[in-house]
């Protein structure tokens, strides 16, 4: 009787551990998704803010690195199936380099 009690207790303990590990793993996956989502949104906001600043300040070029695609008035950042976008105030396009339409100034 005592040995059966022991086995049952061990099984219960293992099941408990498995449940706990499963829950932690699930949380970890959700956390990774949330982290990616935040990261993509930050990247899109960063690209959008730079393009908006180029427009507002009639800038000529941006010599930094951007990691987003640009479609008309949206800066888009994507990884896998997750996509985050940020609306910009002007039209822009990105092929090999990004092109931002700015207003002519001092003319």
């Amino acid at each position, binding site marked *: 009787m005592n040995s059966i009690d022991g086995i049952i207790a061990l099984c219960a*303990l293992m099941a*408990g551990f498995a449940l*706990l590990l499963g*829950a*932690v793993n699930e*949380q*970890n996956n959700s*956390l990774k998704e*949330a*982290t990616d989502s*935040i*990261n993509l949104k*930050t990247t899109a*906001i*960063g690209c959008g*803010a*730079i393009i908006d*600043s*180029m427009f*507002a*300040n*009639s*800038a*000529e*070029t*941006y*010599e*930094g690195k951007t990691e987003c695609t640009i479609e008309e008035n949206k800066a888009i950042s994507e990884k896998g199936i997750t996509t985050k976008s940020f609306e910009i105030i002007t039209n822009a396009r990105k092929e090999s380099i990004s092109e931002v339409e700015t207003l002519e*100034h*001092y*003319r």
Partner: protein
Amino acid sequence: MKGFFGFALCLAMMLILVLFGTTIQKEQEQLEKIQNELIIAEQANKEKTLLENNTDKIIKIKLTEQAENKNFKTVKAQNEINTALENYLKGKAIAATIFGEKIGEPTKEFLKENSNVMILQTNGTVYAEYVFTSNALKNTTISSRIGNKIITRFEIPAGHTTRIMN
């Protein structure tokens, strides 16, 4: 046993919270970096506007002086305006091609070759005009690259004209 599971769960949750906090902190740092770039761009634009406004002001003041003094010797008038411009632009802008290649400093000689002054009087009214004409090929300019990563460009375009009537 209940206490152990509770502790383990608590520990796991705390770990997740710490990881989440680190991510948020990292993103915040990235946004702050971008914010700094944007502030530098705003400052560059301010600098560019100051250069434009002051260049216009210098030309206008000097041109008005020439008109008030009825100095119809345009070479002398052009020389005076260009001297003031050279003094202001020295160290702030360069003589360049329209593609941004440096030719040299915006000296009086360069300005003389790239500008034109006209002062006329009719019915007691003096009309004066200063034009940055560029050269015969229209491929020279006075320009300056301002900024860190977001680059703005100060440029006096060919054909930039200041007119006054006195």
